[in-house]
Each structure stands twice: as structure tokens, then as C-alpha cells.
């Protein structure tokens, strides 16, 4: 694989597919899109298998200086690798999910998806600050179009909200980027990750980036665009939105905020903690009262992503690795949950929970998949959800037991709203005749769900496959953060050990004659 510009190739294949889709008929466009995404996934497997664990930090680097300091520079570390893999894995599934559901302007729709894949890969692979910016912001344009053109009845309002929130953040981030390039004299991301910005400048730089990333995560109270966007988006749009686009915020924190502004990150950790703690409790409770399936899962996403931000700002290896694993896991699981919603939405055209019920009777395999993803969502050990949550919470506990306590209540609330959803959809009697007449999942739907189910279990039982590629990169980041990491609030103080066990009993008073 030496010398093969595989990252560019992975962007070129879907780009070519996108162009082709614009000019062919609906049916052919579907096959072109599926072929292109599968080919990209194939390249992704080559990428992963040829990625050297323990090799150089940045691999598969490509560089073409364009003008001034701006260059087309690509390269990945383990974290980028995993997120690229997540994207290219979900893409063919999204195409399959849209197979019958999208009936108008199929070519354009497929082109939008493929174009979005190009931009997502670019975002995770970019090594130039401005190149990142272009991919990062442009990646949202296809998403606007997907919601705005192929979305539900209230799509205009949803994409308007999405737009407004995002715009605010990106303007501030762009200004910060100018300043950074002027200060450091380079737009090379790996160099900037080692650059020590003055402490006072870090403060506003951190806030400028935070404005952009907090919207993407999304963090409370910048989250209200997400439920609307999800509700209006077509199924595949929701899958990508939850699966990949929400990860851009977390990726931004781990790639920019933490390594570039470590001191400001430590100073603002309290802000992240407070917003995350509110998010866990608040959005979980909101999820509990939702009557719309997609809204419920959207709110649960906000609660889950709050554990990511808590883990990232725990400033230790477990927190960081846990956060990345949650991002991967949530990408799979919430994507799969939206697919589950899509499966029954395609049959009954409603997202209202009360319109279903007793699906375990007429759709047993659907109920099984839905159960698996529900359990993964609430972090059952053996699924991917547990590994990430456990590590991130173990990480934050070492920094603050209070934050850990509040964040861990998410496991109770999460179980409550997800099982309540599952009960209303899959359990109970068949109260609605049309819901009772729905057939079980088709072969196409099997092909969509089974790979995600396998990945969820794989990541839960043997997460080493996913931890190993990023271990060295997290270690580098952890070392960079070590100097500013806040002290543990546990302040463990040694004391003289007790001389005997708590229930020690001596022979002299062992005759049982009352208390001693």
C-alpha cells in the first residue's frame, strides 16, 4: 500500500459516485450509490488493516501545498481511523435504508449522501486547519438539503434552527483560526497540536472553538435543534446525523480544544461538567415524556453525548478512551435505533409511540434487534455501550466523584426511558390493527441491522480491536494534558490501618455474654 493515496481515493470514489448519480435514473442511482459506498467501505477495511498500531502518529499522509499557507494535507491517527471507519461502515446501510423510502429526486438524494461521505472522510483526515474548516462546515450543507428537501412536514423550521445554531459557532471558530495561524505561523494541525499558545489567548480561543463544537455535540442548552432535525430528517439522514455528525463536536474537542488549549480546557472543565450534568438529568427526563419515537431517541443522544464531554474533560486515559468508544458505540447504536424507527415508520408512516404495541408478536426478529439496541443504548455489559460508558465514568470519578455520581444517574434514567419505549412499542397487546398486521423485517432490513448488531457485540466483548489503534494517540494527548490536569477531588489520605477485622472477636468475650 506504500505510496497509494488511499485517503484521497476514499474521497474520490464517493465523489465520482455522487457525480454519476446526478446523471442516471432513479434505480441505477441506488445501485451506483450502494456500489460506491461499498467500495469505499472496502477501501476502509484496507485502510484499517494496513494501519500500523504503534507506528508513526500520523499515517497515510498526503500533502499538496496549494497557495500561501493553505495546503491539501491529509493524514490520520488512530482516532481519525476509527471515526472514518464508523462513517464508511454506516454509509452503505444508509443507502439501503433509503432504498424504498425515497421516491422523489433519487439521484440528487444519493448524490447528497455520497457527497456528505466525501466531506466526512475529509473532516476526519484533514491535517490543515482551513482544509478542516472547509470539510467541517461544508459537510453540513448536504445535511441541510437532505432535511430541507426530503424531510417531513416541518422541515423548513428544522433546517432553519440547524442553520442558525451552526452559523453562530462557525463564525467564531473561523476568527479563532485566523488568529492561531497568524500566531503560530502555520495551519498544520499536528504542529498546532504541539504549539503552546499563551494562556490568556487560550481562553478566548477555547471559547470560540467551544461555540462551534458545543452546538455539534450538542451540549445543553444548545441542543434544541437536534430533536427537530431528527424528527424531520428521513431515516438515513437521522442515522448519519446521530451516527457521524454528532461526533464532529467530540472529535473537535479531542483534536483541537484539548491538545491546543490545555490550560484553558482545564480552566473551563467546570463549565463542561455543569452543562453535561444538567444535560444528563434534564434531557433524560425530557426523553421520558416524549410521545414521538424519534424525539425520544434524539433526546437520549443528548444525554449520551454528555457522558462523552464529561469523559473528555476528565483529563485521564480512561475518560478519553471511554469518550471515543462512546462516540463509536453511540454512532452504531443510535444509528441502529433510528433504523428501527424507520423500519416501522416505512410500514405505518407514523412515529407516534402509541400507534404501535405488541410488535413482539407479529415482528419477533424486529423485536429482538430492537431489544439488543435498546440494551446497548442503556449500557448493558457485553454491548458496546457499556465499555464506553464504564471507561468514561471511571475516568471522571478520578477527577470528581460528584460529577461521576450525577452522570451515572444516566444509567437509571436511560433504562427508564428506553425500556418504557420498548414496552410501549414491542410489549403489550396488539391494540392497533394496522400495527398488528405489519410483517417482520425483510431481507434488506436484515442486511442493514445484522452488521450493526455484530459490531455492537464485538465492541462490547472484545473492545481491544478498537482501543488498540488509538492507545498511542490517547497516551500522547494524556501526556500533553498531564501538566494542567486538575487534581482528584478524592484526596485519598493514608491512615494507620486497623489492627483487626471489623468482626474480630476475642476468646475472652466470646462466650456470648452480651455486648462488649
Amino acid at each position: 500500500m506504500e505510496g497509494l493515496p488511499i485517503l484521497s481515493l476514499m474521497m474520490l470514489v464517493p465523489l465520482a459516485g455522487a457525480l454519476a448519480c446526478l446523471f442516471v435514473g432513479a434505480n441505477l442511482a441506488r445501485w451506483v450509490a450502494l456500489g460506491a459506498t461499498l467500495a469505499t467501505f472496502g477501501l476502509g477495511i484496507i485502510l484499517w488493516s494496513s494501519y500500523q498500531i504503534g507506528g508513526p502518529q500520523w499515517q497515510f499522509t498526503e500533502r499538496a501545498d496549494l497557495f500561501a499557507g493553505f495546503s491539501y494535507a491529509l493524514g490520520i491517527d488512530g482516532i481519525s481511523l476509527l471515526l472514518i471507519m464508523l462513517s464508511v461502515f454506516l454509509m452503505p446501510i444508509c443507502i439501503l435504508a433509503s432504498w424504498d423510502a425515497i421516491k422523489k429526486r433519487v439521484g440528487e438524494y444519493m448524490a447528497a449522501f455520497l457527497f456528505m461521505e466525501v466531506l466526512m472522510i475529509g473532516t476526519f483526515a484533514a491535517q490543515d486547519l482551513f482544509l478542516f474548516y472547509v470539510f467541517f462546515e461544508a459537510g453540513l450543507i448536504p445535511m441541510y438539503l437532505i432535511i430541507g428537501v426530503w424531510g417531513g412536514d416541518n422541515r423548513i423550521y428544522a433546517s432553519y434552527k440547524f442553520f442558525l445554531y451552526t452559523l453562530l459557532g462557525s463564525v467564531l471558530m473561523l476568527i479563532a483560526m485566523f488568529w492561531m495561524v497568524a500566531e503560530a505561523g502555520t495551519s498544520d494541525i499536528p504542529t498546532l497540536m504541539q504549539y503552546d499558545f499563551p494562556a490568556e489567548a487560550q481562553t478566548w480561543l477555547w471559547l470560540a472553538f467551544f461555540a462551534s463544537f458545543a452546538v455539534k455535540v450538542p451540549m445543553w442548552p444548545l441542543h434544541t435543534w437536534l430533536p427537530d432535525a431528527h424528527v424531520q430528517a428521513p431515516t438515513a439522514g437521522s442515522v448519519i446525523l446521530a451516527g457521524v455528525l454528532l461526533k464532529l463536536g467530540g472529535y473537535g474537542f479531542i483534536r483541537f480544544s484539548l491538545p491546543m488549549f490545555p490550560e484553558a480546557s482545564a480552566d473551563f472543565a467546570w463549565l463542561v461538567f455543569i452543562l453535561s450534568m444538567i444535560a444528563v438529568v434534564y434531557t433524560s427526563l425530557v426523553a421520558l415524556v416524549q410521545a414521538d419515537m424519534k424525539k425520544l431517541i434524539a433526546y437520549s443522544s443528548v444525554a449520551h453525548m454528555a457522558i462523552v464531554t464529561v469523559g473528555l474533560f476528565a483529563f485521564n486515559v480512561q475518560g478519553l478512551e471511554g469518550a471515543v468508544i462512546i462516540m463509536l458505540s453511540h454512532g452504531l447504536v443510535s444509528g441502529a435505533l433510528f433504523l428501527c424507527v424507520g423500519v416501522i415508520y416505512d410500514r405505518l408512516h407514523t412515529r407516534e409511540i402509541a400507534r404501535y404495541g405488541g410488535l413482539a408478536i407479529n415482528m419477533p426478529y424486529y423485536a429482538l434487534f430492537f431489544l439488543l439496541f435498546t440494551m446497548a443504548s442503556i449500557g448493558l455489559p457485553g454491548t458496546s455501550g457499556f465499555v464506553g460508558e464504564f471507561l468514561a465514568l471511571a475516568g471522571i470519578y478520578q477527577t470528581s466523584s460528584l460529577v461521576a455520581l450525577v452522570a451515572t444517574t444516566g444509567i437509571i434514567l436511560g433504562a427508564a426511558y428506553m425500556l418504557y419505549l420498548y414496552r410501549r412499542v414491542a410489549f403489550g397487546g396488539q391494540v392497533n390493527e394496522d400495527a398488528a398486521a405489519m410483517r417482520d423485517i425483510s431481507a434488506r432490513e436484515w442486511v442493514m441491522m445484522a452488521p450493526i448488531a455484530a459490531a455492537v457485540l464485538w465492541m462490547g466483548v472484545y473492545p481491544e480491536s478498537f482501543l488498540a489503534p488509538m492507545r498511542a494517540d490517547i497516551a500522547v494527548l494524556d501526556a500533553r494534558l498531564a501538566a494542567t490536569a486538575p487534581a482528584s477531588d478524592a484526596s485519598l489520605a493514608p491512615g494507620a490501618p486497623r489492627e483487626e477485622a471489623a468482626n474480630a472477636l476475642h476468646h475472652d468475650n466470646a462466650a456470648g455474654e452480651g455486648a462488649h
Partner: protein
Amino acid sequence: MHPILIIVFAPLLAALIAGLGNRMIGNVAAKSVTTGALFLSAGLSWPIFLGFLGGDQNAEVIEVLKWVESGSLNFDWSLRVDALTAVMLVVINSVSALVHLYSWGYMEEDPDQPRFFAYLSLFTFAMLMLVTADNLVQMFFGWEGVGLASYLLIGFWFRKPSAGAAAIKAFVVNRVGDLGFMLGIFGTFLVFQTTSITEILAAAPAMSGSTITFVGMRLYTMDILCILLFIGAMGKSAQLGLHTWLPDAMEGPTPVSALIHAATMVTAGVFMLCRLSPMFETAPTALTIVTIVGAATCFFAATIGTTQWDIKRVIAYSTCSQLGYMFFAAGVGAYGVAMFHLFTHAFFKALLFLGAGSVIHAMHHEQDMRYYGGLRKRIPLTFYAMLAGTLAITGVGVLGVFGFAGFYSKDAILEAAWARGTGVSQFAFWAGAIAALLTSFYSWRLMFLTFWGKPRWALSEHIQHAVHHGHDDPDHANPPKQEDAGHDAHHSVPSPHEDDGTAGYHPHESPVAMLIPLGVLTLGAIFAGFAFKYDFIDGEAFWGGSIYFNENLIHALHVVPLWVKLTATIVMLLGLAGAYFAYIAKPDIPGKFVATFGALHNFVYRKWYFDELYDAIFVKPAFWFGRQFWKLGDIGTIDRFGPNGIAWVVERSAGAAKSIQSGYVYTYALIMLLGLVAAITFVLL
């Protein structure tokens, strides 16, 4: 291949075959493969247990697969086999194998048998992973795995709304405990930098004097860690405060109640305490709490048991109460005794549940004891099995001669509590003694109402249904409703004048597949105490360091005054006499009692109002806050002043802004492009 690998993974494999194969492989194949796997596991478990008894088996750990390595936080999938595990292996696999066999008969007419057997085997696998865990995280895996299986089995008859509700309740209440368990693991990792149980136990004594801050409180390190872990144990073992899910869990099929909600899963908390006993022994405050909670639970649950009408609920509260005994035994340091009661309880409580299942089976799914009566002659084998179970749970025996299983273990617990000699242990002793009286009362009440007296079946809806529609009703498998015993006011108490009270119904003894497990468990209920008392209570060599063994306490336990030794027997006789008096000799007494002490009876009958209380302070507020956050927070505040506010401002502004708003996608692209141009210009300059 080490036999433990087969013991643990055969049930998983069987569960996958039965669950995924389901209708493709059919009922008989699914049932055979799961039941076969469990008998195989049980057959392989007994030699290991006997090996530890004989002293020729050593503790070992078998590595299976790496699990997680994150910085200094490492844990693997591995199987630990020592004496403590061996006890659990025989309990779990024996009861599970028998329950599988029993279910061949009990679930005969159910349309969903492969699913049921798959869940049972899956449960067994998770429970085995729990008891073979060598690190806290794998224990937590098993812990949650059994929680999942419990959820699925309680909700097995998911068409019934009450089953779905009970399943969620069980899972969520357990999650409250799991919150404690998880924080306990995090704290343990923080302090010891490991989750390996062996390493933690070795390092714990050195940390016993240290202090730590937890959520702003300065506490002894070991106390807070053990309290957090114990909260997990309280959830799983349905201790006071987190017990509310267990009675509702009776919505599951009766074999499930026997296996999960009596013999195995609910004892996981006790197992955890024993597994971590050297750690708990460094935490006196935590142990005091364990003792108090255990003693309070054993009394509290026993009071409720005396008033319930649903036969399964009586046994459920009985289980809750017996678990309390095990906890306070552990709390006072008698871990071997706690494990002994766990062991004997598994046999006699599984027997009582399966016996109750046999009664329910005979009575066409009627569970209300007010509509039983006179069944002794009709289903004699079930009667004798239940009788053995009752003799075992009430602790019948003659000191120094022979006793049923519970006689040895319960006596030992009371003696240990007395011998420990602290104020708290005295409290536990008296709570346990009163609970033993109540145990005897409610157990015999159950027997007398069910098997003695005249038949009172005529007013049972289930029996009427059976008589009018015949036995092979299609909805037999999913009984349409089995209402709370407390809420069926439409049943009137049958009057003695009505013919013979049978309504012409003829209960049948259960099939052989159900009677064999009853027979085997009957042997266990009779002999398990007598046969193993020495090894469990005094067998320091048997335990081989797998639990903290308090030699002085065991010595003291054997020399308590004679009246202490006789206490259990005396209160047992009092309870029996009370039940005989109230339900055989003078059957009008209970009614008069209820009339006189209505408020007290209602308080106990309504389970001390825990459900109502929790509903008022947790469930309703959660939904209320959820709605407020949504309507007033998200919509009323954030959106109103955020995006909608901006839109409002824009609309009120110049007309030029309107075009921006309508074409926002393109505008956005334009703004981005402008930004880029600016960036390039900036860099070029």
C-alpha cells in the same frame, strides 16, 4: 479443556441455539438442547464441589479472553473456581437443571416455549459468569446479565400490561442499586488501581485507616467503598428500600420465580458480600449498615408475608425475608453461615415455588389462596413436597438429633448474631427471632389455606372458567389477567353453605416432568442442612480462604446459652400454633383481627405503602419534571429566546433580511465562502 468452560458456556450455546433457532428447530429440540446443557453443567459441577469438600480440589483461575485495557484499568474475561464458586455452581446448575425439566410440564401448552427455555439458559450463563468472576467488572457483567434475563422472564407473558410494568420496575429499581455498584467499582479502582478481586482483597487491610472524599463528605475509604457496593447488593437481593420489584416479579412464570427470584439471582448480593468479605471486614460502619438493613428486611418482609393472599407473593416476601437473614449473618461476620443459609434456602425455596406452581397448575392458574382449600387429598404428592419445604423453611428439628435444612442454617444465623455480642447484632438476633415466628406463621397459613379445610374453589373465576370452557383453553398459556390479590374486591369471601365448594372441578396432580424436580428438591430440603452443616459452618479448610473465616465467632456460636439455641424452635412452634389456631381451629379469628386492627392490617397488607410512596416521590415527579423541562425549558425558554427570538428580530428588521432567511442554505454557503476568501486574503497579506 477445563470443565468450568463447559459448565459456563454450554448454557450460553444452548440459549443461542434455542433462541435463534426458535420455531425453525421446534419445541422439542429447543427444550432438549437447553435442558441437556443444564444437566451437563450440573453433572460437571458436583465433582468440583465434592472435590473441595474432600480437599483435593484447588482454587484456580482460567483466562478466557482479554476484555479491556485502558491505561492502568485492565480487566479480562476469566473464570475463577474456588470453594465459594463451587457452592454457587452446584446451587445454580442443580436448581436450573431441575427448573428446566419442570418447565417441560409447566409450560407444556405455551406457544413460545423455545423463547422461554432460551431465556432460562441465558440467565444461567449470566449467573455463572457472575459467580466465576475474578474481577469486579465481570461480576458486574453477570450482575446486569441476570438483570436482563430477569427482565425478559418477568415480561415473558408480555401481552399482559402488568407483566411489562413489573419487568421495567425490576430493571430500573435494580439500576438504582447498580449506580452504587458502579460507583463502588470506580472508587475501588481509584484507590487500588485494579479491579482484580484477589488484589483488592489483599490490599484492603492496608487501606483500612485511610480517608477519602466522596461528594464532599470525608469518610473512611473502605466504609464508603463497601457501602456503595452494598447498595448494589441491596438492589439485586431486594433488601429494604430496594425490595419493591421482587413481589411484582411474580408476574413471571412460576418456574422463573423458583430459579431466579428465589434460589439464585436474588442471592447474588449475599454472594458478593461473601466474595468480598475480607474487604468488608475492613469497614466496620459498612458492616453495621449491612446488619441493620438485613435484620430490618427480614422482619419487615415477614410481616407482609402474613397478610398476602396470592400464594406466590407470600413466598416472594418470604424470600425477601430469608435474604435479610443471610445479610445480617454476613454483617456479623458469619459468612460461611450466610452461605449455608443461601445453600439450604435455594433447595427449600425452589421447592416451595415449584410446589406452588404445581398447585397453580392444578387450580387452573388461580393464585389466590382464598379460593384454595382441601387440596391435600387431591394432589397428595405436591402436598408432601410442600410440606417438606415448609418444615425446612420453618426450621423444624430436634437439637442434636435431626432437622430439616433450614433448622441448621437459620439456627446458626441466630446463634451467630447472638454470639457476636454487639448492640446491633442483638437487634439482629431479636429481629430474626420475631421474623422466625412470623415465618412459621405465614408458612403454615399458606399450607392450611391451601391443603386443609374444605374446598373454596367455586368462586374462583379461573376455576369457573375451567369448568365452563374445559381444560384445554387456548389462552391457558397467556392468562388474560392475574390481578393483584389486593385489588380483587369483586371476589366475595365464599360462604360455607354453598354445596361442596368445588364447583365440580377436579384438580389433577402434575405430570412426571414436574414431580421429579419436586422429589429431588424434597430430598434437598430434608437433608441439605444435616449433610453439609459441618463444612459450611466450621469448615475453615473447606472454604480455603475464599471467604473471611472468623474462627472465634464460630467457636462462640457453638457455646451460646441453651435458650438461644432453642429460640428458633420455640418461635417456630408458636407460629405454627398461631396459624393452626387462626386457620384451622377458629377460622373466624383473622376476620376479627382485621376488623379490630384495620389500620395496622391495611398498613401491612399494603406493603407498608412503599409503592405508593415511591410513586409519589420518584415516578410522578420524574414525569412532571420531564414535561416541565420540555415545555417550559426547551420550548418555552431556549427556543423562544434562542432561534425563534432571532427569527422574530430578523422578521421585524429590514426586508433585505427576509431574503437571507428564506435562502439560508445558499446564504450559509456564501458566508462560508466569504469567510474563506477572507482567510486566504488574510494569509496572503
